[in-house]
């Protein structure tokens, strides 16, 4: 696309981020009396800390990338769904299922050589994630049960399932606290910095692949067509049901990969009550990235930076981490309220071309696609 068009596409997200930072600043100033005395400068110091915590040093940069990795993958999981007119809120569940599968298999093969152990553990993660993503796809395709509701429900089911596994069958012998055994050799090697693990590459590779598939192949054409008009897709000899199921399965696969990456690349085992923000952050990433792989890469890095920098923000400015959630929500708000943003800045930015985001809720009450 032309540079001009790129600028017009970007303007809304960028402005949304800007406005969110403003709102965040106001919130901080108003609440600063509760932190350590009224301090109009608080937002500045907080954001400064946020930035240097994210980009201030090589280590910080690595941390940003590492934090961005699962977000980018989860963002793709949601974004690809959008392209097919599906809203996958199940990232959290798919992430957890992928993580527990990787932890289980990783532990089982922990003594085998890395060349064997790592692929096996990863495979377990993606397969489990894909399978878990396939369920809502199947339900949607054959019963019309809307994926938003089913994925929300499946998130909670996943939490219980993982709880059962970690405190039961997978519990490490001898551990005083319920956790899965160490994944040993299945742990991902650290490639750069102190914790820049192999998993980072997955995200880096996944983005161009996703882009190519979506925009340069017949598969992507089918996905986008199903998203834009399931009826036309069916008429054209495509199989919307299949496409939906595959799209959600691929989404699950990506989220599962993210989960596996976190376990194998960072913690090395799965403790009981293992929790993650990735599921919902993924939605923000996908929306902010306009459901476009490139956009998702950028917004993933942005949110990764926020997560990475938030620590320094707490340490140096004493601002509670919840501010990050607020910022995210407000960014989303201004994206949704595009109208408002346009008014504030009197601009005519390009609308999202095929308005995927609109198609999502429209299908809420829809019947079984054929």
């Amino acid at each position, binding site marked *: 696309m032309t540079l001009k068009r790129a600028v017009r596409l970007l303007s809304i997200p960028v402005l949304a981020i800007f406005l969110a930072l403003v709102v965040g600043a106001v919130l901080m100033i108003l609440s600063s009396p509760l932190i350590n005395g009224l301090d109009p400068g608080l937002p500045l110091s907080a954001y400064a800390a946020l930035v240097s*915590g994210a980009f201030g*040093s090589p*280590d*910080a940069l690595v*941390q940003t990338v*590492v*934090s961005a990795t*699962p977000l980018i993958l989860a963002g793709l999981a949601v974004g690809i769904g959008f392209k097919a007119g599906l809203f996958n809120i199940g990232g959290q569940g798919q992430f957890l299922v992928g993580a527990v599968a990787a932890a289980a298999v990783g532990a089982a093969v*922990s003594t085998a050589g890395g060349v064997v152990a790592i692929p096996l553990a990863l495979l377990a993660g993606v397969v489990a994630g894909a399978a878990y993503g396939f369920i809502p796809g199947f339900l949607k395709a054959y019963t019309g049960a809307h994926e938003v509701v089913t994925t929300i429900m499946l998130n909670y089911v996943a*939490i219980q399932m993982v*709880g*059962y596994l*970690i*405190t039961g069958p997978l519990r*490490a*012998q*001898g*551990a*005083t*606290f*319920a956790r899965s*055994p*160490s994944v*040993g050799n299945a742990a991902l090697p650290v490639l750069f910095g*102190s*914790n820049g693990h192999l998993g980072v590459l997955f995200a880096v590779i996944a983005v161009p692949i996703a882009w190519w598939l979506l925009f340069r192949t017949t598969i992507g054409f089918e996905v986008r067509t199903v998203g834009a008009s399931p009826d036309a897709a069916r008429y054209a000899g495509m199989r919307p049901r299949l496409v939906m199921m595959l799209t959600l399965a691929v989404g699950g696969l990506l989220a599962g990969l993210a989960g596996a990456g*976190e376990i194998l690349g*960072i*913690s*090395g*085992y799965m*403790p*009981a*009550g*293992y*929790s*993650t*923000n*990735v599921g919902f952050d993924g939605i923000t990433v996908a929306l902010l990235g306009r459901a476009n792989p490139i956009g998702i890469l950028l917004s993933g890095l942005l949110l990764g930076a926020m*997560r*990475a920098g938030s*620590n*320094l923000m*707490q*340490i*140096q400015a*004493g601002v*509670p*981490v919840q501010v990050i959630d607020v910022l995210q929500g407000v960014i989303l708000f201004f994206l949704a309220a595009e109208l408002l943003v346009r008014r504030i800045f009197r601009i005519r930015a390009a609308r999202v071309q095929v308005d995927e985001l609109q198609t999502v809720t429209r299908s809420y009450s829809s019947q079984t696609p054929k």
Partner: protein
Amino acid sequence: QGGGAGNSTSGSSSTPSTSAGPSNSLKIGLVTDVGTLDDKNFNQFSWEGAKKGAADIGAPAPKSVVTTASADYAKNIKSFVDQKFDIIVTVGFALGNDTTKAAKANPGIKFIGVDQGVCVTEQGEPDPSFGCKGDGAKLLPNYQGLVFKEAQPGYLAGIVAGSISKSGHIAAIGGTKVVPAVANYMAGYANGAAKVNPNVKVELQYVSDQPDAKAFNDPAGGKAFAEQLLAKNKDVDVLFQVAGKTGNGVLQAACNANIHAIGVDVDQHLSTPESAKCIVTSAEKKLTKAVSDAIKRVSEKTDKGGTVPLDITTDSIGLAPFYDFQNLITPEIQTRIDDAMKGLKDGSVDPCKPMKCS
């Protein structure tokens, strides 16, 4: 998630402010477990401890990083390491693994792990087989793992419960069995009660099977759980809670049922005034003191690595005052308590018998 339970903001939180600026340059940072600094729970009281310790040694006020997801432990510890902090306090056994790694990687930094038994291989790595062959003190001299003997305060609570119960039927509600601290409190409680009344009936119930929000952050759920328990066992007349904020709901249920309640971790008569009217006492685990002491040891260079057992001998645990219930505690009950304490001190009493601790 949380080991102990509901606690006091007032209690130890008042930190003497060092007016004459920092006389000591040690930078102290604290990483919480998943939860918040105001969890009226072990995050909060370790934080109070860090603040107190810093004040006592005249160091600048400590900084904190709140963990929002257990995936972030390592990252959060690292951000203090990157900021060249001198003392890093990590709260909760769940962080043990990552704290051990960090301690190994950064010998120059002092680590204090709350509720973390140091368990390492001969190489000083986290031990995947949990054999704990390696000697923490030698291999990781910069890592103090503070481990409370929760069974002891639990045992004392049991003595009280067993003694004041008229029906001989008492209960305890814990967050989840899989958290050792919780299980130990519960075991000690049962054993203590059995000591004073061999045929006492003790209901030990756990709200959840994993350390999740239901176990430690759901007062409504906790209250309901307790109410259902009391509906089923109408003659239960003492209720002990070991379930964090979920437990605060348990205390409410006890009050509504007009039975005696026993708080946990800190003096809940102060920390949960709403329920003070039925809290006889609390099984205390003096987190604040423990953490600030550990910090003092570091600044006085008297700190030793490895697991630091905290029990009655170091006055790290005990029973909170009885307040309005003083009259309930007859001299004879008081002597039982004193004997138990003596026994625990000299080791003649094992709070983990007959019921095993984890």
